[in-house]
């Protein structure tokens, strides 16, 4: 469904290059790597926020030739550390995620109904009357995630959606993503490697602006993680999953 070849994108001094990458529908992929390794730049390219050279196709059509509105109907990108500068209530924040699905003039009844469903699903419905700027960091993050999911897009690009979220909601969010996975492509930038090892099928490991490894959950080993993060680590295998720890 996603097909990338010889992609090069530049942002200030930084250069991202990807030789070849194919992603199919139904995959939930963890994107891992050091800070500044190119993860967010990669999502920006996929989301159409950054210009690139090379071939990027979605369902056999060239991404650059897609209508701009269609791109945003197809792809929902959650950027890192979203902020808001006006005192809107939480419901309106989530509702506005459906903007690309509207005619640009007003939200329809269906948008309101879908928003309510998504907010209940992500356990943020009780916050609906609060002003977004008064929420805690983790609450804001969950509201923005609800906003991103509210578009009901086929491709979800989530940049650190779990950062700042409490443990229970982290697990619940991952469960929700797994339910959405079946007919979608989900790419998630994640720093909790143990969680990623337990819950994700495939790993894209970035280092210095390059896609260093593209591995399935069965293939990935402690050495790979060690190389990606420049530290010595080991896996502790347990019946409930894999845990990672640093080797002295």
């Amino acid at each position, binding site marked *: 469904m996603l097909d990338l070849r010889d992609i090069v994108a530049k942002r200030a001094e930084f250069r991202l290059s990807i030789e070849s990458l194919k992603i199919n529908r139904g995959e939930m992929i963890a994107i891992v790597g050091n800070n500044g390794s190119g993860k967010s730049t990669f999502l*920006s390219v996929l*989301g159409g*926020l950054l210009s690139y050279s090379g071939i990027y196709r979605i369902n056999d059509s060239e991404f650059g030739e897609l209508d*701009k*509105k269609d*791109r*945003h109907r197809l792809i*929902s*990108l*959650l*950027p890192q*550390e*979203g*902020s*808001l*500068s*006006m*005192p*809107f*209530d939480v419901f*309106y924040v989530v509702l*506005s*995620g459906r*903007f*690309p699905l*509207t005619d*640009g*003039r*007003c*939200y329809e009844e269906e948008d309101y109904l879908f928003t309510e469903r998504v907010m209940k699903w992500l356990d943020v419905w009780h916050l609906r009357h609060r002003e977004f*700027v*008064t929420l805690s960091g983790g609450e804001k993050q969950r509201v*923005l995630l609800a906003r991103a999911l509210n578009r009901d897009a086929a491709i979800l690009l989530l940049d650190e959606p779990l950062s700042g979220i409490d443990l229970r909601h982290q697990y619940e969010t991952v469960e929700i993503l797994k339910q959405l996975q079946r007919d979608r492509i989900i790419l998630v930038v994640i720093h909790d490697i143990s969680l990623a090892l337990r819950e994700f099928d495939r790993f894209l490991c970035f280092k210095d602006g390059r896609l260093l490894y593209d591995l399935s959950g069965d293939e990935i080993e402690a050495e790979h993680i060690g190389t990606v993060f420049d530290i010595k680590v080991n896996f502790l295998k347990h019946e409930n999953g894999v845990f990672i720890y640093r080797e002295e």
Partner: protein
Amino acid sequence: MFKRKWTGIIVGSMLLALTALLGVLKGSVSIDFSALTDTDKNILFYVRVPRVFLSGLVGAALSLSGVLFQYVMKNPLADSFTTGVSASAAMGAVVAIMTGLTGLVPLFAFVAGVIGLFAVYRISTVAGRVQPITMLLAGIVVSTFSSATISFMKYLSDDAVSSIVFWLMGGFQAATFGKDLVLLFALLLVWLLIRREYMALDIICFDDKTARASGVDVDRLRKVSFLVAALLTAFSVGYAGIIAFVGLIVPHVLRLVGFRKADELVPMSMVTGAVFMILNDLVSRTLLPEGQELPVGIITSSLGGGFFLYILVKRKKELHYFA
């Protein structure tokens, strides 16, 4: 939501009609409406009616431009005055007068206003965001330069002094139906353009990346909004001089009482701005005994100063959110 918006607009329009009527009935000369003389009729139709219209239209235009500046700069303290646009537009107007091109006053005001706005925008943008405090400082810088230039020109030519003083203090003495019509046309044009962008305006209040990822053409919307806001300011300054803080006070109060989304805030700001300005003008015409007139800019500036103090003292925390 729907209910609040329309209740607000209907109540606002009724208030607008009432204040406009009051503005026509009251003035420095008391008119006996049971026995109108020719002079009374002249006063009513050539002085008061165009003046009430102009004050209402300028109030609406300045409030709308304030709302747009706040959206584009993501900054609740932005308006035509704090962004330095008013002062630079006044400088343009003064240049037009001094060079004898009085017919081109709005054009000169517009060009100079856009230049001033661009300077403030560039100076106060840090990492893609306009910083509230830096913007205020940059606005002071641009306003100071503009005022210095105006003073310099005042020094060079004594003849035009009185009209230059008028630009600095603001007022509606020079109202005509012609000016009313031009401003009404500009205001309608801008409103028709902006009402198609209500949803997108709300979305550019998010950080740029989120707004772009939501499918809004942020750069285009920002440019369009900047230009039309500067246009409204230029016409207001060109016809009525510098009238400070209206675009700051009116939207802020409306947000406080719950009109926060663009589809409510924009129309409510225009209606409320008109009411506010007609009342200000009425006070400026009738406050002093014996028919002397107070420049309306003095009244809005003192209200604006007090309001700024209120924001600084009472709503510090809110500013912190936005900073």
